[in-house]
Every structure is written in C-alpha cells, then in structure tokens.
C-alpha cells in the first residue's frame, strides 16, 4: 500500500539526502547506506538512547563550524538538519563508547560462539577502537541455566538492554529482567530455569554479542563462515516463516531468521528455530528398503515402477507437510482421480471451505505485517500461540495500534520507543478471544469469551448479526456472550483495520462460517485462517478427496508420501486399511508407524535436502531450497515418483495443470537464473572447507556438486552481489558479519527486501480465479445460504458475497459424557520437531484437561478413551467440555473433538 510521506532534506557531510521526517537520523542514515554503529537501537524495537554509540555531529546551519554531538537514534530527520558522521570529535566519541564497553567485555572472541558474526566485533572494527588503556580487572558474573535453547554468558554483556526490551516489552515475557545497577546490571531470570517465553530464541539474534547463543548449535558448533546456507521455509506451522538453514558435513547445524518484511520480519518462534534437529535424527531413513532388506536407489525406483505398472488401481496418499511438487508428482503418477489428500475429511473440507471464502472475498487475507498493523482483532476458536506462534507475536504488536494514536496526538515520535511506552503505559487496543479454554494471549485481550466450539461459532455469528442485519441471528445467547458480542461490535465499528482470525483447530465448520460472515459485513476487514500444517492449503489446491475416501476405495496398492497416517486417523482404521492393501509404498524421512507397514520404504529428503514450494496460511507460495547436495540414496519425493529433469519442469507441469497454481513459478527465480553468468553461492567467501573438508580422503579439490534444481551453487564461488530476495542464503555484507547485515538488503530499514519480499500470493482479496462460492455450496455443503444479501441502510455497500445462514445450536452438556477438544502445545503437538532433542525437553506429558469442578470430581488421575491419564486443571474449559493434548503420543490419531465418558480410577 503506497503511503504518502513528506520528504525532507538532510545534509550529511554537506551533501543533501532525501529523508523521511517521521524517522530518526540513525534509521535514515542506515537506509541511505551509511555505516553508523549502534547497539541499543533495533529496527523492530525502536530507539531508547541507552548506548550512545550512534553519535554524530549536528550543525545549526551551514555557517556553524562547531556543532554539537547528538545521538542519531534520538534525533528526528527533520528538514534542513545538517550532520557529520566523519567529524573527528564524533568519531572519537564513538570509539570512546566502544572502549567503555570493552572495559569488561572478555577477550574471548576465538572461543566465543558469536565470533565471526558478532555485532560488537563489527562495530568495534567500524569505530576503529583498537588499543586498550584500561589497566584494571574485569568484572565477572554468574551465568544461569536458561533451558535447552540458550546459553548464557553474562560476562560478555555490554548492557545495551535490547534483550530485556525484546523479551518483556516486545514479546510479553515476564520471567526475564534487568537487575542491579551501575556497572553490575545483570540480565537474566530471578533464578535459574527455562525461559518461559516462546520467542526467547530470538535473543540469539537480538543480543549484539555472545551473551545469548544458540545452545543447539553449540552441540555441533561451526562458525558462520564455515556453514553452508540455503534460503528455506519453516515447516513447523502454517505461517511459512522464512529461515536460513546452515549445514556442515552431514548435519544441519542451525536455523536463523531470514528476513521477509511481509511474513516473519526479524523474528521466529522457538519451535521454528530449534525444531530443525529432526533432520539429524537417529530415526532418519537414510537407505531405501524392500521389506526388511536395504535396497539400492535404482532397484528401489524400478520396484516402484513395476508395482505401479502391475497395479492399475494404485492410489496415492499425499501430505500437508510435503511440498506442492511432491504432492503433484504423486498425483501425476497415480492420476488425479486416485490421489487423496492424506488428511481426514473433517480437516480437508474446512480447508476447501476456507479457500472458497478467501477466493470470493471481499475480505483479503493479511500477511503477518498486516496482522501487526490491525487495530482491532477477534480470534475465533484458535489458541494462536500454540498453533501459529509467530502470529501471536504479531498480535502482541497489533494491540498497540489504537493506543499509539495517543502518542501521535502528543507529538511523541513513534520511533522513540520508551517515550511511546510511557505514553501508552498499559493501554491496549481492542483484542478479543473466543475459545474453549484459556490461551497464552489472554493477558493482552480486552475480553475473552469461553464456550464449547459450537458456542464460539454462535458468538461469531452474533457479532456478524450485530454488525449487519442480513446475517442470521443466533437465539438465546447467554448474558456473558451478549456482553462480549457488544464489546466486539463496538470496537469493530470504530476500527480502521479490523481483523478476524479463525482456523481449523476445533474442526468446527460453524466457526469458519461465522468468521467469514463477520469479515463480510465489516468494511475494510481482513480475514486470516490458520491452517494446521505448512502446506495444508497447497494440498487443498491439489485435491478434494480425503483420507477416509482413500480407505473406502479399498485399493490393492497405495503410495504414501511424507505422512504418518497413524497421526491422522485412529489406529484400528489405519491398521485395517494397510491389512487389506497388498502393496504399500511409503516415502518418508523419519521412521514412524506408517513406515513399519510398508513393503517398500523410499528414503526421502527432509526440507533441508529438498527444493519445493509451500503455500502458507495467507496463500503465499514460497520456495525453499535444500542445503545438502543431491544424494543418490536420499531423494526428494518428486524425484522418486517421476522422471522430471529438475524442479522447474515439475513446476511447469503443475502450474499448467492445476487451477489456482499458475503463479507459483514466480515464487523464486528458476534454476536457469544467473547473475552475470554465475550462480548464487551457498557458502560465504571465507568458507574454509574448500580444500580441507575431504582432505582425509583426497587432497584433490573435488568439483562442487551440481545443483540442477536451483540457481544456487554448492560452493563459495559465484556472484558475490546481492541475489534476488527469494535466493538470499544468508545475510552478510562487508563489515557486517552479524544478523544486522539485513540492513544492507532492504529497500529501507525494516521495509521490504530489495526487489520485493519473496513469495507470491495465490489468492488476492476477493479476486481469486477460484470457483464462486454459491456454486460450491451445492456440491459440498448442505448449508442453506442467502442467495443475495438483504441490503439495508446500514451497510448497503459493505459486502458483495453471500452469507452463511445456518447457526449451530447452543452446546448442550451431556450427562456422564464430555466433549473432548484438542489442546495444542507449541512444543509437542508438531510431528517433526518432536524428534529434535532440545524441543523434546519441553514436551508436556499426556494429560486430561478438565475444569476445576470436574477435576475435583475425578482426583489426580482419570480414565478417558481407554487410557489412564493424569488430570490437569485447565482454566476456561466450559461445563461438559474436556481436553486432550493434540499430537502427543499415545494420543495422536484420536479424532477430536469427540464425545467420551470419563471415569474414576
């Protein structure tokens, strides 16, 4: 969205530069490409003026030769400002600040995890401070245990306060703080313990030096310059955060944030950052096998081909965690009619409905950047923190949108972070949550409304009704629901950028319909659906037939890709399916119950070894690239299943053959792309393994592996210039070795990457090429709809789509039976990160969630669905509703919500 801004002229070293007067000088100098050192400022956190590192000389006018030192981060870029960065007094002061920080900073760079990508190192070199005048002892601190993700080395701290500002003020954490004063300021917890905040891992990148470093990296440590990187996409929820993955030898070493201005910005969640280690798991399938015998790749492929040829009824079962290309390859192999989604109909139908709703609009679906700038939010039936964690961080910022107007009225510049926070204090904009139990965002909610999933849907319908009389009216709402509806309605009427968030967590169609109705009657609203997995929407583009239909088809042979069916359906159903299937082929990368049922198991690439496209929850198709060179034994699903020359051929076939996917080729440049004739190197130019990595085998320098699928090379050779945004393997720029090098890749600081943020949206607001909603209504949905909206005075132009009409009836608790709903856990509910040792330390044990009254009835343990489980009191669960953690063995595969008795033990 183009925003008109005034442009002012600021003179730097007497040369004019156009600048944004709404910004500070540091931000604008960096945007203009100047190297000005800083510490406490962070593009996402704003200015607080603590470190005094970005000092420049400011002059009153062109005749002023004396000037005075000001902090660039605290000075507005107002018209006619004249500054000098080179000024000798300012430069000496900046070197003096570094000297001050170095009084106590240990000289442990050679053994520090941060070395080689340390902002403090970079800034020290930039200021020129190189001689030590301090002749006293350094102070020492005691370090803390902070959990499985982060190391703590407080002696390295330069007290820039970024960590505490990110943790408490930006991410809403409470168990981390600054303690003591003068030169003893300490950042940590009040006692040792696991950091509670789900975004704590960002401290690795927020900390300008090595106080907080990646503990998972430490266990297989490699310097940044010795890692080989690829641009990748996180596969651990549906948001599609952009990540940069680094490997050395045969292990994946770490994941860091890859800035995408529209999606994840500067931050990741801890599951995304630390869940990568399943790639190195001992459960990896590294060799194909026929029954119990290992089998070579060519023989394996031959066997698959023969099997398909001799079983004309073979079906394919796809997966929401496999790429579009792999799913498409399976679909192409078995034929679209025999390709099944690999997820239950209860989920698939919801995904298809969501796509229909988004296609017909008018509400568009927001990127995370747009979520962040929403000024009134309603969450219907989603525990956002545990299902789509990064979005929760965006929502924490969205509640500042309305109060920030107060700061504007008082003329407090919005980049003055603490000035704004003083003005805002605890003021929060409208944020409403309707769910069946407490969520981790309740602390910022204006109001929460708890009810069974059907009641959540009814509340949603009631809000739509209150906004527009065409929407159907739920009868007999309870008083608390009515009050909630009124609050939401009032807030939405005042809002400029209202947002409705919903999703498939409760497998409740009413919630999604209600969310659609609210978004349709609310002018200017956006609608965000959270989907269960990284490519759920991509899968829904490819097929409309569910896993149950696959079972019903009673095939004699089945090919399953990257999918543990035992996590999808109850074990007896999956067992009987496999029993009646004469031939089962499974392509996957981790051993699971499904692979044990296979006649042929094909060792398949993880995201770190594969290239492909994922469609995130905003229908943004994003390309990921593998970081491991191609392997004979481990291949990508689409390579096992077809004979395509390279990824681009699959994409070409798919975009021509599947409606809605024609745009995906634009997600990233094709393999033929070259920069001045050269590929984009995956390795930093200081990569030291070139002649050493294989020296124990041969001293010849081997030819780098060939990458047919991407314009990236497995080499340090290539074009050193900045590649297109979708191909940036790692952020590095001369003099900027840390994550702060991101500055050099953006059009302006905190703005889009040069050439635009990566990814291509497959559905734009209300103008998708998809099927109009009314036509699908007849085939998939008995729901009676209003064929045309009743237009009335209030909102004559407010919408052009149809409204859903069938309001579910109110939830009725049953005698001796409970509606068991799924409860999600950021650490534990996701399949793949379960195999990452660091994440595994934080799993909850399986439990039965009850409200306090029910818990009192059953005591410490109870039996549900044939299992004895400890009882956990979960606030907010309505009467007659209980919960089980989703995806936690042995509870995976249970279809929830479901009714069940609970009995005493």
């Amino acid at each position, binding site marked *: 969205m183009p925003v008109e801004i005034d442009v002012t002229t600021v003179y730097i070293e007497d040369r004019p530069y156009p600048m944004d007067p709404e910004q500070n000088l540091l931000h604008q100098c960096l945007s203009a490409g100047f190297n000005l050192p800083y510490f406490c400022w962070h593009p996402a956190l704003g200015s607080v*003026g603590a470190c*005094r590192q970005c000092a420049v000389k400011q002059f009153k006018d062109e005749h002023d030769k004396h000037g005075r030192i000001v902090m660039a981060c605290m000075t507005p870029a107002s018209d006619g400002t004249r500054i000098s960065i080179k000024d000798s007094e300012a430069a000496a002061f900046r070197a003096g600040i570094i000297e001050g920080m170095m009084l106590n900073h240990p000289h442990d760079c050679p053994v520090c995890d941060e070395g080689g990508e340390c902002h403090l190192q970079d800034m020290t070199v930039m200021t020129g401070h190189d001689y030590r005048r301090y002749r006293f002892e350094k102070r020492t601190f005691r370090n803390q245990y902070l959990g499985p993700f982060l190391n703590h080395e407080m002696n390295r701290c330069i007290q820039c306060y970024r960590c505490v500002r990110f943790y408490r003020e930006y991410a809403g954490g409470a168990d981390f703080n600054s303690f003591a004063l003068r030169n003893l300021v300490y950042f940590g917890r009040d006692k040792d313990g696991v950091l509670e905040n789900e975004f704590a891992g960002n401290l690795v990148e927020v900390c300008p030096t090595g106080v907080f470093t990646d503990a998972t990296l430490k266990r297989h440590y490699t310097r940044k310059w010795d890692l080989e990187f690829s641009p990748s996409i996180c596969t651990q929820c549906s948001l599609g955060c952009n990540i940069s993955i680094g490997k050395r030898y045969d292990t994946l070493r770490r994941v860091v944030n890859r800035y995408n201005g529209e999606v994840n910005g500067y931050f990741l969640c801890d599951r995304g950052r630390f869940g990568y280690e399943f790639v190195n798991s001992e459960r990896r399938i590294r060799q194909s096998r026929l029954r119990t015998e290992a089998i070579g790749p060519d023989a394996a492929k031959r066997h698959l081909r023969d099997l398909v040829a001799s079983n004309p009824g073979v079906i394919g079962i796809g997966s929401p965690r496999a790429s579009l290309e792999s799913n498409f390859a399976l679909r192409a192999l078995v034929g679209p009619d025999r390709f099944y989604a690999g997820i239950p109909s209860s989920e698939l139908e919801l995904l298809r409905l969501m796509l229909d709703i988004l296609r017909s609009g008018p509400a568009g679906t927001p990127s995370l950047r747009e979520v962040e700038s929403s000024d009134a939010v309603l969450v219907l039936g989603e525990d956002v923190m545990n299902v789509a964690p990064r979005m929760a961080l965006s929502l924490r910022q969205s509640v500042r949108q309305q109060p920030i107007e107060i700061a504007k009225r008082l003329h407090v510049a919005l980049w003055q972070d603490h000035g704004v926070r003083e003005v805002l204090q605890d003021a929060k904009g409208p944020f409403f949550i309707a769910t069946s139990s407490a969520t981790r965002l309740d602390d910022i909610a204006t109001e929460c409304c708890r009810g069974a999933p059907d009641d959540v849907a009814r509340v949603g319908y009631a809000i739509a009704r209150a906004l527009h009389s065409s929407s159907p009216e739920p009868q007999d709402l309870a008083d608390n629901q009515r009050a909630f509806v009124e609050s939401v309605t009032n807030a939405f009427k005042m809002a400029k950028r209202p947002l409705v968030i919903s999703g498939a967590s409760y497998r409740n169609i009413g919630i999604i319909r209600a969310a659609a109705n609210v978004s349709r009657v609310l002018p200017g609203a956006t609608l965000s659906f959270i989907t269960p997995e990284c490519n759920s929407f991509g899968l829904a583009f490819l097929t409309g037939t569910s896993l149950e239909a696959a079972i019903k088809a009673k095939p004699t042979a089945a090919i399953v890709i990257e999918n543990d069916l035992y996590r999808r359906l109850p074990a007896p159903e999956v067992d009987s399916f496999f029993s009646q299937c004469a031939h089962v082929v499974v392509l996957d990368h981790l051993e699971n119950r499904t692979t044990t049922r296979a006649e042929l198991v094909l060792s398949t690439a993880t995201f770190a070894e594969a290239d492909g496209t994922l469609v995130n929850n905003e229908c943004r198709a994003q390309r990921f690239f593998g970081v491991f060179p191609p392997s004979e034994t481990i291949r990508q699903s689409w390579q096992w299943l077809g004979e395509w020359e390279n990824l681009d051929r699959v994409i070409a076939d798919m975009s021509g053959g599947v409606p809605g996917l024609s745009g995906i080729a634009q997600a990233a440049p094709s393999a033929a792309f070259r920069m001045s004739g050269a590929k984009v190197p995956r390795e930093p130019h200081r990569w030291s393994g070139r002649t050493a990595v294989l020296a124990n085998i041969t001293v010849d320098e081997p030819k780098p592996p060939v990458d047919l699928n991407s314009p990236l090379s497995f080499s340090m050779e290539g074009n050193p210039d900045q590649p297109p945004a979708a191909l940036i393997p790692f952020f590095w720029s001369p003099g900027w070795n840390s994550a702060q090098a991101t500055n050099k890749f953006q059009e302006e600081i905190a703005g889009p990457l040069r050439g635009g943020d990566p990814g291509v949206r497959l559905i734009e607001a209300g103008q998708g090429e998809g099927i109009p909603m009314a036509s699908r209504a007849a085939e998939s949905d008995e729901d009676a709809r209003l064929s045309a909206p009743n237009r009335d005075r209030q909102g004559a132009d407010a919408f052009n789509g149809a409204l859903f009409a069938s309001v579910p009836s109110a939830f009725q608790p049953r005698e001796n039976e409970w509606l068991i709903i799924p409860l999600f856990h950021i650490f534990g509910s996701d399949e793949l990160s379960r195999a990452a040792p660091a994440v595994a330390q934080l799993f909850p044990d399986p439990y039965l969630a009850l409200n306090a009254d029910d818990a009192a009835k059953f005591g410490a343990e109870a039996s549900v669905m044939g299992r004895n489980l400890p009882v956990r009191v979960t606030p907010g669960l309505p009467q007659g509703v209980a919960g089980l953690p989703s995806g936690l063995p042995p509870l995976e595969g249970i279809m929830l919500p479901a009714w069940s008795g609970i009995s005493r033990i």
Partner: protein
Amino acid sequence: MIYNEPSPLEVKVISQRFTLPNSAAIDTYLATDGYLAVKKALGMTPEAIIDEMKASNLRGRGGAGFPTGMKWSFVPRKTDKPRYIICNSDESEPGTCKDRLLMENDPHQLLEGMMIAGWTVGSNKGYVFIRGEYRYLIDIVDRAIAEAYERGFLGKNVFGSGWDFDIYTHTGAGAYECGEESALLESLEGKRGIPRLKPPFPAVVGAWQSPTLLNNCETFSAVPAILRMGGPAYAELGTPKNGGTRLFCISGHVNKPGVYELPLGFNLLRMIDEVCGGMRNGKKLKAVIPGGSSSPVLKAQECDVPMDFDSMAKLKTMAGSGGVVVLDEDTDIVQLAMRTMKFYQHESCGWCIPCREGTTWLKKILDRFHEGDGRSEDIPLIGELARNMLGRTFCALGDAAAMPTIGFIEKFRDEFEAHLLKTQDPQSPELIVL
C-alpha cells in the same frame, strides 16, 4: 528540632517556624498564619496564582533553577486525564540537607504548598516522594497528613471549595538516580529507576501517563509565603530573576556549619565569615563547592560572589541544591575527586554506557591515583573520560559526575601533578619505609 544556632543575618521565610516548640504540629502551624495562603488561593483563579508565582521569581530549588511559575503554566488544564502533584523529597545530593529540615520541622508548610499547586493546575492527588533513607520523616509527614485530614483540610471539599485533594507519601529505595524527575516517576510507578526520555516532559506526560507537576520540597514550601506576602514582595528579598530566600546547607571547614536561610545573592565570603563564623582553626580558604557535589568547584579567589543561579552560571558552576561545601588549605583535592567519583559510580543507574562505564573507570583511576599508583597519562585520561560524559549521557547524572571532575582537574591540575610526583618519588618518605 534544628541542628545549628540560627544566625542573625538570616531572613526567615520558610524556616520561620523551625525554632518554635512543637513546630511540626498543625496547631503551631495554624497559630502562625498556617493554611491562610491556601484559603486565599481558593478564592483566586489559577491564572492569577501563576501570575503571582511568576512575579515572585521563585526558581526551582532542586538544582536546575527553572522558574516555578512558568513550570506551573505548562501543565495543560484542558485534559480528561487526572493531574498529579509530586513533591521531590528524594534529597540525596551530597552536601544537601534542607528538605529534611523542612519536612521535619514544618511539614504543613509543604502540604499547603502542594495544595495550592494542586488547586492551580486542577489536580486532586499529590505524592510526597521521600528518600528511602529518611525513614523517620515519612512518619512525620504521614502524621501531618493525618492531622490535615482530621481537620478537613485534605480530602473532599477542601475548605468548602468543592475541590477534593489527597496527599500520600511514597518512598524511594535509596537510589540517587530516583531524584532525577523522570526516574522518580518510574520509581513511583513501581518500575526500575531509570530516566525517561524527554520530551514528553512530565508536565504533559508524567505519572501514569498524565500531566504531572513535579517540584522540589523547598520549592513547594516557599509557595504559602509567596501567596501571603505577594509575589513581588517575595522577589524583592533576592536579586533580579532570583527571587526570595533559600536554605543554604553550609558544611566543611567552617566554625559554624549548618542550614541557614539567606536571600539569594548573599555573598559567599560573607556566608563563610559572618554567617558561619569563619574558617575552622584559622586556616585559609582553598575552595568552595557551591551547590552540591555535582557543581564545579570554585577556587578561593573566585569566592567573592553573590550566591544566586545567574552569578554561579557566569562562573561556569551551579547554585544547584544549595549545598555549600567549604574547603580549607589542607584539603587533598585528589582525595576529594576520588570520593566524589565514588559516589557517582555507586549511584549510576546503569542505563547508558558513557556514565555507567565512565564513572566506573574514573573511580578506579582516581582510587589508584590517590593510592600512589598513578601515571602521568592518567591526568589527561581523567579529563577525557569526564568530557566524554558531559552533555552526552542520557540524563544529568553523567553531567553531575563529569562537571566536578573536570573542575578539579582543570583548576587543581597542579595538585594532581604534585600528587603524582610525591607518590612516584623514590626518595619520598613513604617509599623509603619499604
């Protein structure tokens, strides 16, 4: 009680009740014109009161000397937010001990001043933020507040005006930094005592996001007298632009140290000789710290000067908080510089780097220098580090540490050099012992 004999040269305006028996009691206060000023104020418009304050030329007694009337006029009246009156009694500037006497001996005068301020800016709530170490004063001020409530002077409908006003006490936890007004607000709100960014200034966004009038204890205490005698009459007591009297806390090598109320512009040498009975033991005057430990030192030859804000500024020092420290010829300036820096190092809040690291490093250098392990390059380094703080730290604490240090090193460089020579000389008696 009072701690020193009064001087006949004093002009007693705000300390007039100090010597009365039971001076803190409300009846003593009422018997000596107490609460007349607030009654008068309630009959005046806020504009008229502010005019009176401006006419008095009263300047903030906390140290900065900002004109009080002007500060009051900055508080917006058209706002739907509550407005707060905050009395800064977090008196911790070394050399300063006046707020303590005002609260101990005449707490009602302070309360009345705050009430007048409250009425003027349309506030209904005041806080007395008292230094944590002044534990006993909290009881005294609380007792005075209770007395005022008992008589109906505080609470609902003050003196039948229809206006409500409450006053509470609140204590700091012993941090010097919390005497800085914005850090005080953070502390009052229950947060870490670090300074805030200005603007917005407290008058616009102060406590709890609301317009806040923050004045020093002595400033508020002068308000009732100003309203009683009228602004111009109060101004007359002092020099132009420096109205009225103030409490000078004179310590150091004089015969009669103490807290004396004298008109602004009173000559410094007369203060030493006539008010304080001259130098102790007949020693010669070497230097004076004129306005609390953060004000740059004056050499003896600079001391024939009127003590007011503008005269001090001309000498590149500050009238500050009125803490006058008189130093005789035997004073070791190196030790004084070391001890001063020890205080600021200890009190640095740790927010910004030049102050946090600068004070720490300076303290270590000065310690070592004083102990005899100094080097010749230390002297310029001390100056350099201090100048790196001056005007470049986040709040004034860095300036407060830098200014006196620069003063010592510039005005008494010879002493530093002599100290170095003495301690480095292998023939010096201390070293011969080895």
